[in-house]
Structures are given as C-alpha cells and as structure tokens.
C-alpha cells in the first residue's frame, strides 16, 4: 500500500496521520497485505456466511417503552438545552 493509498484510506476512516505515521503505516500494511496474499491460494468451496453458527431471527411486538431514564443517559454528555452538542455542519 503506497503513501497515497494510506492517505486516501485514512481520510475515509476519519483518521489524520502525521508524516511519520504515514511512513510507518504504509510499511506495516504492506507487510500485512503481502501476508494476506495467502488467501489467494486458499481453495474456494463457494460456501459463505456471515456468522460461524446459524442465527435465528428474533421478533417482538413493536411496543414503545423506555428502558433508561433520559437524565441518566444525558448526565455525562456535552449538551445544550438537552441536545447533544456537536461540531458545526456549515
């Protein structure tokens, strides 16, 4: 992975990297991706799945409820008039 690709990936992941970090991660990720090439030679059975065991769907009635006291949820949040404070959009 070259420096430009690392920079592009970091931008997509919202990570800002210094020059020395770009150098280091470029070198590390190259070594790791070279190792991942082992996957290219793995026999492909075509069978796939996201989970290692079968997962059952669990359904419930859609009944409104409140599990938590809103004041407890907000107690440590940076808020303004009970709204979560965040960076400006524009």
């Amino acid at each position, binding site marked *: 992975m070259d420096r430009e690709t690392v920079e592009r990936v970091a931008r*997509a992941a919202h990570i800002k990297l210094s020059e020395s970090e770009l150098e280091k991660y470029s070198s590390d990720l190259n070594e*790791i991706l070279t190792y991942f090439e082992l*996957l290219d030679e793995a026999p492909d059975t075509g069978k796939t799945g*996201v989970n290692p*065991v079968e997962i059952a769907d669990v359904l419930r009635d859609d009944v409104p409820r409140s599990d938590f006291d809103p004041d407890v949820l907000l107690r440590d949040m940076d808020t303004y008039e009970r709204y979560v*404070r965040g960076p400006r959009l524009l």
Partner: protein
Amino acid sequence: MTMRDVLSSFREINSKYHMFHAVTGDADPGDAAFLFSAKDNLTSADMETCSGSRILEGYRPAFDAESIARMRAAGGKLIGKCNMDEFGFGTFSVNSGLEIPRNPYDPERSCGGSSGGSACAAAVFEDHVSLGVSTGGSICCPASFCGIYGIAPTYGRVSRYGLIDYGNSLDKIGVLSARAGDMRKYIHMISGRDPKDPTSCAQPELKDTGRKLKSAAVPKDGTEGLSADVKDAFDRSLEKLKSMGIDVETVEMPSLKYAMPAYYVLATSEASTNLARYVGMRYGRQRGDLSLRFDDYFSSFRSEYFGEEAKRRILLGTYTRMAGFRDRYYAKALRVRQSVIADYKSVFSRFDAVLTPTMPFTAPRFGEISGMSALDAYKADYLTVPANLAGTPHLSVPCGYDRNGMPIGMQFVADHWNEEVLFDAAESWEKGFEMVKPEVKV
C-alpha cells in the same frame, strides 16, 4: 483468604500488577456469595468502562452488560474492571491507552492479551473468577501466560448485550479462573438466551450430560513453530492424556493455515465499522475544538485519542472493505471461514476435541514485545485463531512451566455447543496436574 481480606488488600496488589482500571470503593463484601472482576469492555453501571481506550475515558454506562448482570443476580460482587488491549486489539495487553497488567509470575513479562488484567486477577486472588472476552484468542492466550484455566464458549452461548464490540461475528464472553470447576459453574451462570442479543437465541440449552472427553486429535501443523520448552511440555501432556485413557491421534487439517489471514481480514473489517461511532460526542471524551467543521472535528479527535494499533486496524479494515478490494479480501475470508468450520466438523465426527499448545511460547518480556513488528504479533495467535474464526468453544489448561518458571498452556477445542466436553477435560486434567501458584509480593 476471606472476601473481606481480598477487599482490604486488592488495591495495594493492584498498584504493583495493574490488573484493574477501575475498582469498587467497598471494603465490606456484605452478603456477597463470591467476588468477581470483568474485562473493561463489558459495561458496568457502577464503574467507568473504557475498553482500554483513552477515547472512552469518563464513560459511565447506564446499564450492566448481561453477563455482569447475571453474575450479580447470582450473588456476585464486582470488585474491578480489568485492564486490556485497547478494544481487544492485541496479544500482550500492551496496546493500551491506560495501564498495562504485569504477569504475576514475573512482573517484567506480559500477562498475554487481550484479557490480560482478567487473567492476572484470576491468578493472583484466591477463589476469584474473572469475565474475559475472546475475539481471536483473548481468553486462552492470557490464561496460558498466567498459568490458569480459561474458556471461550461457542459463539452465541453468552449474550453480548453490553459488550463494547470488536468483531461482532467473532466476540465471545467467557471465564478465567485458577480452578477448573469454575469453567462449568460460571459458564452455566452467564449463558442462555437473551432477547437483547439475537445471536444468543439460537443456542440449544446447556445441560450437564456427563459427556466425557475420550479422544483428541492433534493437527499436524499445530505443533510447528513451538519453542523447545512448549514442545516438550506439550509432548509430555499428550503422554499423560494417553495414560488417562484418552485416544490421541495426529490428523490433517489443511484449511488451518488460511485461518490467520481470514481472521485478521474479518476482525479488522468489523472493527473498522464498530469504531466509527467514536467521534468525541455523546460518551467518553468530548469537548474537542468545536470551531472545527464536523469532518475535521471527528478526524482530529480520533487521531488524538485512538492508540497506534487501533489506528492500524481501522486502516486495514477500511481498506479490505473498499470497492475494488472487497471481493479479494472480505468476501474470500468469509468463504475461508466456512472451510475451516468444515475441517473442524470433519475431525469432530471422529474425535471429541482438537488439541494444540495454546501459545507457541511463554509470556515474553516487555522489551521483547517492543521489538516485534505488527505482523509478528499477529502471527503469535496462530494456534488460537482457528477456533475463534470457527466459533467453536475452546479451553486452555495449564500443562507445565518453562525453564524460567513461566506457565505453559494446552488448548482443547470442541464442536459447537459441546462445552460439556471441555468442562470434563478441565476437571479431569486438574486432578493430575500440580499447579505452581505465583508468589505475589507487594
């Protein structure tokens, strides 16, 4: 040592071994039936939960993880939250934004990771059980390095509600203790269906069937790359198992060599999406430079408070999911996982368990770890990763000590939902194994 003795001494012990990030302020056990601790990626309503990360410092959850809630409901008293690699990203518990736990057999060495603090607490305190979490080996590795028993049950056996996710399709909550019997006792306590985690709802009931371990298969490649002391202890352990009447044979498991890259692709892919929620708002650290626009705010916050390994795994997982690379890495890794599961199922049609050493070497010194590349550290997991990728239950038992007196572990893997075989393996093994407890000096 009574519960009151533990509560009066554990802060002093913690100041030397750094097993806990947060501790209870209580000195009186009250009517508690037992004391326990939990890895710090399990939420606790009465203690800060940071998952080893500076970005979560100050996070006070509004609720207990289901596993902690079940321990409390059974009379357990939570005494501390255990130090760990940041979000579980590591093999030695050194990738932490907080404190690094010290091995009770030699404080200059690692406890293993990522449930290092949990293993340390279980090894040091008498009658102590600790909850750990395994994604790629994070229960068995530290159990091996700290000379205790550790079990990661089948994926979905224990509710993940309240677990700060690393890899959703890989994370499993389990138990660490110096007593073999605790594997059975506490997995029974924390397992079972929980509507709050649908992945727990497909499980068959965990029953005491009395099923015994009668046979074990050793993968041919599972004994390569071992240190001389680990190989020697493992060979002697195999002879001991045979003398216990257990049939031990060598088998071929050709897919295992692909498990490592498949695991790291899936784990980092899932981690990179899970960590997208940490942006300096809502919980943990907040109040960054609000004069920045939102993209810059998020990027600067994440860059400042994520550690080096967290950033590496976010970058790697983002890359392997990107358009143009997804099929080569992520989609292929999903198919390799199915091949690994098929290999295990084939062996389990003839044997009760698959057997290897837990780790290829004993607990390294911190200086040795700092000399490892990222890939070297990943490769240290090659014996624990396959079972984690397959979601099969696995257990580490102490099986010897190296020339420096550092513990060596042996790992049993059983078929999905067959924890019973592992409980029996641990209990039968304990009867004939002489554990050397660490000398804890404060």
